[in-house]
């Protein structure tokens, strides 16, 4: 059985990796992110596709995809937004006091879910890495990055699908 999007075309090792722009666009990344938000953060949680500057102190989570296309899916938001996001994600399951570990875990899981669904629309087979969280995500090649900037509860966050900087 072949995957519905499998064209049967195979790459040789000497072939250049596919350009990201040929594989997915901002609309797809936004749709995947919105689906993750609706299901995990809340049905009424709207993402408004409006770019706005990120605050000085940010938190990022990211997952690596390795396959015919290799790169990273990065979620970045303000540190305060990350805490609010964790509370919204856990809802009634949240501990009385949110620890940094809870915030990193929740942010990592969001990157994992978005990354897993981004992987599904890219050519496969690919391997999804474990999520990582920090203040400095891996650098991407700006010319080969698909970035979506949104507002959640009026606060900016970005989701980037990026090829590695060479």
């Amino acid at each position, binding site marked *: 059985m072949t995957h519905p999007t499998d064209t049967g075309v195979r790459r040789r090792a000497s072939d250049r990796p596919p350009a990201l722009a040929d594989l997915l666009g901002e609309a797809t990344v936004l749709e995947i992110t919105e689906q993750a938000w609706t299901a995990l953060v809340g049905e009424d949680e709207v993402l408004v596709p409006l770019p706005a500057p990120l605050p000085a102190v940010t938190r990022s989570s990211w997952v690596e995809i390795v396959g015919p296309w290799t790169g990273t899916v990065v979620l970045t938001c303000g540190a305060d937004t990350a805490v609010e996001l964790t509370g919204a994600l*856990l809802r009634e399951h949240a501990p009385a006091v949110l620890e940094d570990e*809870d915030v990193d875990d929740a942010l990592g899981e969001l990157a994992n879910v978005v990354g897993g669904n981004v992987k599904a629309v890219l050519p496969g087979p690919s391997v999804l890495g474990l999520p990582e969280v920090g203040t400095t995500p891996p650098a991407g090649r700006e010319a080969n990055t698909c970035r979506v900037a949104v507002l959640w509860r009026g606060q900016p966050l970005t989701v980037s699908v990026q090829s590695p900087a060479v």
Partner: protein
Amino acid sequence: MTVRALVIDDSRAMRRIVTGTLEGFGYETRQAGNGQEALDVLREGWLPDLCTIDWNMPVMDGLQFVNAVRANPAWRTLTLMMVTSESEHGQIVRALAAGAHEYVIKPFTADAIRDKLALLGLLPQEASL
């Protein structure tokens, strides 16, 4: 009758969400942070009716856990449900071929879990009302 579930995920947040959802349906739950921890729970003798299993986890991933469970005849009654962001068609086929009964792709809703449990005959009667 109490229905038991072992929730296996390396994300504490996701374990809390899945556990909360299942407890809302009347399940008694335990949690494990990876496949190896889950095997330890089974070897203790705490046998659940259902295991929900993430795919990508450190130490022992979800597919390795499914293979380990299916290799042990004493655990053949366990119902295994993948709950994962791995949504490639080939991965779904691999998990089902290895012995998983159902496959839920993250992000999911509580209703999606309820529907799968109903299909598996593992939805406590009070939760199906």
